[in-house]
């Protein structure tokens, strides 16, 4: 079946990056909803993955996303001090200050990975951050790094090893 979401990855007819956003449920996800309520348009390149808190995002998820060929990743949560779980994003900040530098060190282009604090009231900021990141990644083309491997049998929802 022709997969409707097929992206023909050639720069000529306009490469459209696919960007994964890890959004914390209490702030950034609410901010994204607010952007929707206020009808603030932004390019349809981002896909939001909701997590309870930005401290739930394991740097290994980010490496996994690049491994599977994503073009850009954004981890976004509440501003330090406003975390619904009081101290969650302080750990996020420490972990991703290091992860960002490690990804740089390994050669992932710095435009492809971002971490931002976006509160539940900052709908316009969500729009602005997403638009800027999409433009920056669109300029540097699809991600070729870390992702030259596609498992034939993935651990997807079919019979893969899902443990209850």
């Amino acid at each position, binding site marked *: 079946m022709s*997969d*409707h*979401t*097929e*992206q023909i*990855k050639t720069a000529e007819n306009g490469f*459209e990056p*696919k960007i*994964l956003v890890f959004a914390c*449920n*209490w702030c950034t*996800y*609410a901010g994204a*909803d607010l*952007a*929707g*309520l206020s*009808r603030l*348009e*932004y*390019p*349809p390149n981002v*896909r*939001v*993955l*909701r*997590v*309870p*808190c930005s*401290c*739930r*995002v*394991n740097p290994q*998820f980010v490496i*996994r*996303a690049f491994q*599977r*060929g*994503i073009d850009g990743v954004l981890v976004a949560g509440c501003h330090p*001090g*406003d975390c*619904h*779980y*009081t*101290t*969650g994003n302080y*750990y996020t900040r420490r972990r991703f200050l290091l992860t960002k530098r490690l990804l740089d060190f390994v050669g992932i282009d710095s435009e492809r990975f971002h971490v931002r604090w976006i509160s539940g009231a900052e709908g316009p900021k969500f729009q602005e951050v997403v638009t800027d990141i999409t433009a920056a990644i669109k300029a540097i083309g*699809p991600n*070729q790094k870390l*992702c030259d491997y*596609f498992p034939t049998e*993935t*651990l*997807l*929802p*079919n*019979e893969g090893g*899902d*443990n*209850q």
Partner: protein
Amino acid sequence: MKRVGVFICHCGTNIAASVDCAQVAENLKGYPNVVFSTDYKYMCSEPGQEMIKETIKREKLDRVVVASCSPRMHEPTFRRCIADAGLNPYLLEMANIREQCSWVHPHDMERATAKATDLVKMAVAKVSHDAPLAKSFSPVTKRALVVGGGIAGIQTAIDIANNGYQVDILEKQPSIGGKMAQIDKTFPTLDCSACILTPKMVEASSHPNINLITYAELEKVEGYVGNFDVTIRRKARSVDLNKCTGCGTCWGKCPTKVDSEFELGMTKRKAIFTPFPQAIPNKPVIDREHCLKFKTGKCGLCQKICPTGAIDYTQEDELVTTRYGAIVMATGYELFDHSVYGEYGYGKYPDVITGLHFERLINASGPTMGKIKRPSDHTEPKNVVFIKCVGSRDETKGKAYCSRTCCMYTAKQATLVREKIKDSNVYVFYMDVRTPGKGYEEFYNRTTETYGAHYIRGRVSKITQDGDKLRVRGEDTLLGRPVEIEADMVVLATAMVANADAAKIAQLVGFSYDKDDFYTESHPKLAPVETHTAGVFLAGACQGPKDIPDSVAQAGAAAVKVCALLSKDMLETEPITSEVDTKTCAGCGHCVDVCPYHAISLTTIEERLLGQTITRSVANVNTSLCQGCGACTVTCRSSSINLRHFTNEQILAEVDALCQTIQNK
């Protein structure tokens, strides 16, 4: 094989206008684990939910994905819907194809549909790993704690107590009463503040369900809604409350005089003192900083002359831990420190005073027995100038917000000056006059028309001391010319700001506060007295500047929220908590320290190894404390601790599902 049902909602035209819902449903047919995929105009409507329930039964679905609006809105609705059809409510995932898709990509049907399809695929990948979960229950302690003994705190406590629940009022000062006790008359009815406050204070002190804890501070707060373990530091009063009758011989004879904080330093109080005559409890406290006995070891006069032997210098601070079901923050406000304003003399001119200062002057039990006198030479002022918005609505040196109450109390004070001092002249410099309450506008009109206060629309640019007079120079924007007044006294309506320790207390109890340190309500319109932290409520000016009527109204609201909570015996707690796989946990304990709720502890388990029984330590999660943030899951390098409903496998599946759609790189 999982049997996932996918339901794409049109939401009328909200989604269908820019996402081809039928096409999305079509795209999901044949997708791994999807056995049923359809779209419908209003999934959340009665017929919509009915259709889901029938499909679950007919197709024997074991998991459901609804692609519609934000889960923050309708996740509970659809959880209840599938529960009605016999499915565990947690075998549901939602794809947000409205707020985060159709509404923000209105002009690109093709790519919005492609995005919607991706989002639904991610949801299917996640739901395939969902496990059935059951809500757990934790007991509710039927006792509330009200932090702050001002009018808001007192009213909240009375309303809770009248519902039959035990309430403790925790007050930092030696007596309850708060700022309202310092005020003379209250707008708009001009009835005297003490007359309406003291009865409430007495009611609070004599109410069987209310327990006053004064001269005490919050030390530590642990636990969660229904079970807050609060440690209070009862500072040593050096007076035994049971023995003391409040007869006053001690503070009558005490030799040491200290500036009275209650009277803003305008009169003295003794080292052993009650803040004001109508104080409740009307029992003194020894100010150990100034008391000679504590400073030099001499004196000890009060102990000698106390008829009931209530004085006890050896008293120590006492830490008391009690369990509460709910906490109401009613810690009130402070006044903005106007000494940052060079224009008004940096706070050095003695006759430039604040509104609260003025309240003490006109108060019958105040330092001047109600006579308005100039602090510099104690003469009666003729020309009195009021300046509004000092620190409010001023982003450069003060606060950006409007403090709501200054217009009304300045009008009241202007009226009182005109009333108390014959042929006095009153000038009020203002930007706007805001009278938003019942009877407020009429009160303001009476101030200008009946009492003849001169309202000058303009800012004061400078006050200079000119001999014993104050030269107030400003501008009258309506006349378009500068104005200069020789004033005897200037009263500044300074902004209401959060207490200096407001942020510290918020962090102690564990709820958020805004950039001005006012406490953040859960929702400004729909949940003004709740906070994001379950079980913690707000009342009064600590949530933002407000006057007495609004504070009392909020107090009532907070009280009802508390009673709703305490009326339950058991509290349902969200089952999205962490769980430990003891097979792989090495007991390193690093997860214990990252948990904000101290929900994880190391316990020992027994195990057969190489023919012997050994004991080893592993992590253990207290599911009633765990709030499901997930910090521990990343700290654990062996992934031995996982978060139900947001497991590592689920998030990896979502990432893989999304990246699967760009496989043909």
